[in-house]
């Protein structure tokens, strides 16, 4: 309890110090790839971008330094929530198959140095939330927490957050607990993620809005409408404000917002339908895709 109160105090202090800051988009360019590209994922350094198709078919990587494209996988589902490992030297991605008409997901790794592929996890049911751990990853499958690393690793498992059937599951102190920050029986939690400092949880409650809570589920901030939110760093998040007519998406903009919700800057341009942002604080970059399949990369400055 003491820890929680201390963190809440720090959140208030840090959030309060944000009010004088401004966010500026210093540069913007289109990722020069020949195909339509969606759902970008920046690495930690901000010099590589994973991308896929609108239906998550296949996975490719664009290197912002060498300006080259690497094809990682043509497999269906490979583009769904891929990630770089903690050292930015590997990519973990899914291979989705159907067995007896049941969905199964395996995870492969792809080494950027030699393009070597390794099956890290055989096909699993109900695979969720791949997260970095040591030189591998943590993941839940069929409601069990699994770790997969290169070589044995005796490190204690870190705090890990995921969802099961749209409920928030927090792994902490070697056990799962269910968080229900809005304390409503019918809440459906989406886009749940842990902050870089592992102290806060960012999530969207369907039909209600996007929030930040602490590890006890106490709401720290309400950010309003901000879909597909991701952490930029411990002080800022990025998400999209999309609108539709019930049949198709009609508009969307990418917004960067301080964790207290007081600083809000539009990152995308007015004439774009901009969606699904990704962020790299270390690289000072935010990337997003447009509805028609272009990936825009922005370089931002926070003063």
């Amino acid at each position: 309890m003491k820890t929680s109160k201390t963190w809440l105090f720090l959140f208030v202090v840090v959030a309060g110090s944000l009010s004088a800051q401004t966010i500026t988009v210093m540069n913007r360019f289109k990722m020069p790839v020949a195909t339509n590209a969606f759902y970008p994922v920046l690495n930690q350094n901000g010099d590589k971008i994973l991308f896929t198709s609108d239906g998550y078919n296949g996975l490719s990587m664009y290197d912002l330094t060498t300006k080259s494209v690497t094809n990682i996988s043509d497999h269906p589902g490979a583009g769904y929530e891929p990630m770089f490992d903690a050292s930015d030297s590997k990519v973990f991605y899914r291979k989705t198959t159907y067995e007896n008409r049941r969905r199964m997901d395996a995870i492969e790794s792809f080494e950027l140095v030699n393009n070597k592929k390794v099956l890290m996890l055989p096909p699993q049911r109900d695979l969720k939330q791949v997260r970095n751990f040591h030189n591998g990853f943590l993941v839940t499958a069929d409601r069990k927490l699994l770790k997969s690393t290169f070589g044995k690793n005796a490190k204690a498992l870190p705090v890990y957050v995921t969802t099961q059937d749209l409920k928030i599951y927090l792994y902490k102190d070697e056990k799962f607990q269910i968080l229900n920050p809005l304390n409503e029986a019918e809440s459906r939690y989406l886009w749940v993620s842990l902050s870089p400092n592992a102290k806060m949880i960012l999530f969207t409650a369907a039909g209600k809005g996007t929030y930040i809570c602490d590890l006890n589920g106490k709401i720290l901030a309400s950010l309003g409408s901000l879909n597909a939110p991701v952490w930029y760093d411990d002080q800022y998040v990025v998400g999209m404000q999309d609108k539709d007519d019930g049949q198709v998406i009609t508009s969307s903009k990418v917004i960067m917002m301080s964790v207290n919700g007081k600083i809000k800057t539009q990152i995308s341009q007015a004439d774009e339908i901009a969606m699904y942002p990704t962020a790299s604080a270390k690289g000072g970059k935010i990337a997003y895709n447009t509805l028609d399949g272009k990936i825009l990369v922005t370089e931002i400055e926070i003063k």
Partner: protein
Amino acid sequence: MKYKISLLICFIFAFGLNAQNLTGIKICINPGHGGYDSDDRNVVIAPYTSGDPNGFWESKSNLDKGLQLRSMLEAAGATVIITRTTNTTADDLPLTQIVAMANQSGVDFMLSIHSNAGNGVANYVLMLYAGLDATDTYTYPTATPWSDKSREISTEIAQNLYTNQITTWSSTYSIRGDKTFGRTAMGWSDGYGVLRGLAVPGVISEGMMHDYIPEAYRLMNMEYKWLEAWNFFKSFCAYYNAGQIITGNIAGSVRDIRLPLETSYNKFAGRDRLLPLNGAILTLVETGETYTADQLQNGVFVFKNLSPGVYHVKAEKDGYYPQTQEITVTANNTVYFNFGLNRIRNTPPQVISYSPDVAITDSVEASTDIVLNFNWDMDETTTTPAFSITPHVEGKITYEDTQYRLRFTPDKPFEKSTIYTVKLAKSASHPDNLSMTEDFSFQFLTKNRNRLALLTSYPYQGNNQVYNVAPNFRLIFDRKLNTTNIQSAIRVLDENGVVLAKNARSVVNNSVSAPYGSTYFSLSSNLVAGKEYTLVVDGDVADEVGMEVVEPIAIKFRAANVLVTTQPVVESFETVSYVFDESQSVDATTATTTTSSTRLFGSFSNKFAAAINTQAGFATFKANSPVIVNNQKVIGLHVYGDLTGNELQLQFTAGAEVKYVKLCDLNFRGWEFHEVELTSLAPLTDYQLTGYRIVRKSNWLFSANVEVYVDNMLLYDEMISSVSNIADVSIKIYPNPAVNFVRVSGLDTENTVLQLYSINGTILKEVQAIEMNIQDIAVGTYILRIQYKNQMITRPLIISR
């Protein structure tokens, strides 16, 4: 006892089957839309009004299906992610959140439940699965994963939904890739938003068309929605090889076997046109379970989850013969049976009221319908031939109020002042073959009027100088108009029969005082000078009691440029040039002369206005600066007539002598050019044009209020018009309006032919005489054509009584 043995066999059979097991399967159910807002597809069906949350809303219907499907799936061990469980505005989730719910839950399939709209004239199953039609070779911006899997399960669902035999399908089911459908039918580049970005197979199920109103009523029934959910469930069990559903269902509807459902909304041929029996009670004999049909015009019933076997369903409704049907239920199936119940009609039919029901000394409108109301619904095949009316009248018999009412509508109004006898022979019977015990008859007398009469119009038949710029059309009838259909039923056609658009803002209806009716309008564009046009009045233009014109009227006229600029102008009327002279007027009051912007030349015209209160009364407007003329001259004047039928005369003065020369009849509305040779003036004498005189020609109501405009008066030597007219200054038609006879003065019988034309140009009568008997001609406005030797003149003639 027999029923109980059957049931026992059912249970034994049921336990021999494997129960369905969906353990481990995860399904996302998305009940489409959310809330009671403008985008939530409210279909207005009685008794609910627009926006009533208790009425039909697709958002609510989708949710009811979704929640029932969730229960079935969970009972079979499946994990269900449902995107909403309530129906509020907040439940109307962004499409991206719905997709994210399916993806992040790791479901095996996403079902988005909807119903469709087909303009009320279609009802079929449309499955829009995530992907492409199997035959589609178009390259889309993005690929869709699992298109084949989505199509496979969508086909299973469509086939099951289509087995529904309570509804009436307009066509078979359709299974389409959302991208193909979106591109070809909606003009979208990349499919439906709720399927876009979906990482799992999925489909939008449009299970039926909710704007087909009988279907909207069915969708108000919870069991009907359960049945759709059950078909979804059955599809999932089959697709995931989860075993058969060990029970079956009995479903159907209860309707009257013959009585029609008398509502105005569209109903396909077949059962949807029969009367649903609200509140009918269905009993499953073997179990004693009962189901009461709701009150919402659907007759739907469902007995759910029955063990296979033989059952008997009994349908009952007060006033109907009960009916029992043996039905064999099999596992994994719904057996449909639609009941058609027959009414109990155990007394003879009789007429309980009728119309027109008036004393024979009173009279009724000649346009009235004859109505007979019965104590039973009647059999058309015996009742229609039993009906007769004397004198015979052609007409149409229809039945209303579920056959309880017979209506006879005559093809044309009844004759005037005629006693009719209506009879229904006792052979008329109801569907249970009981006939009336005695003949029924009554009489009525019609009024002395059986047509709506057009009293006057502008243009009139044969009018050949209708100013082509912004002509104002005016029609005055003898009764106030029913304006329901006159926008299209009174129209102007060009030479090719093309309807010319009315200027909607110019239309003024029934502006004349009661009991008369009128319609005034202009067109959206000018006419073409020299071209012929037709003003049409359809036969179904009617007054407020439904009396129609009956015989359509076609008034032909020709447009002209009436501006004459080739002769010297002796008066331009830019200032007030003539003033009212009360001393030279009779029974004229409130007379004025003003300048007016209703003009043809310069900035102004002169407007003469007056109330002339008696027939033959007149108003004289005296010239401020008289023009000098003689009998060798011609005077031409641009006149804006007022459709009064009055006469515009010129006053000439030479010393003590005062003479009046007729310029024109004011039987037009708008600008025309009229000229007159002054040959009736004494030769070798200079006259002054000292004034204008407007003479009231009849006691017709609309002759009293004078409003005439004049512009540019010309003085010249030769008539401009080449039309050969009788020097008609001496011709008088009297009386006008006429009652029994009309006479022409100033001509001799030997050289005179009188022809009476209807206003649409049909010749009605012709005599070689100066007098015509018009007693057999109906009240209205006519054209009297007078042929004298080789010359001709036409005049409007009003017949009134």
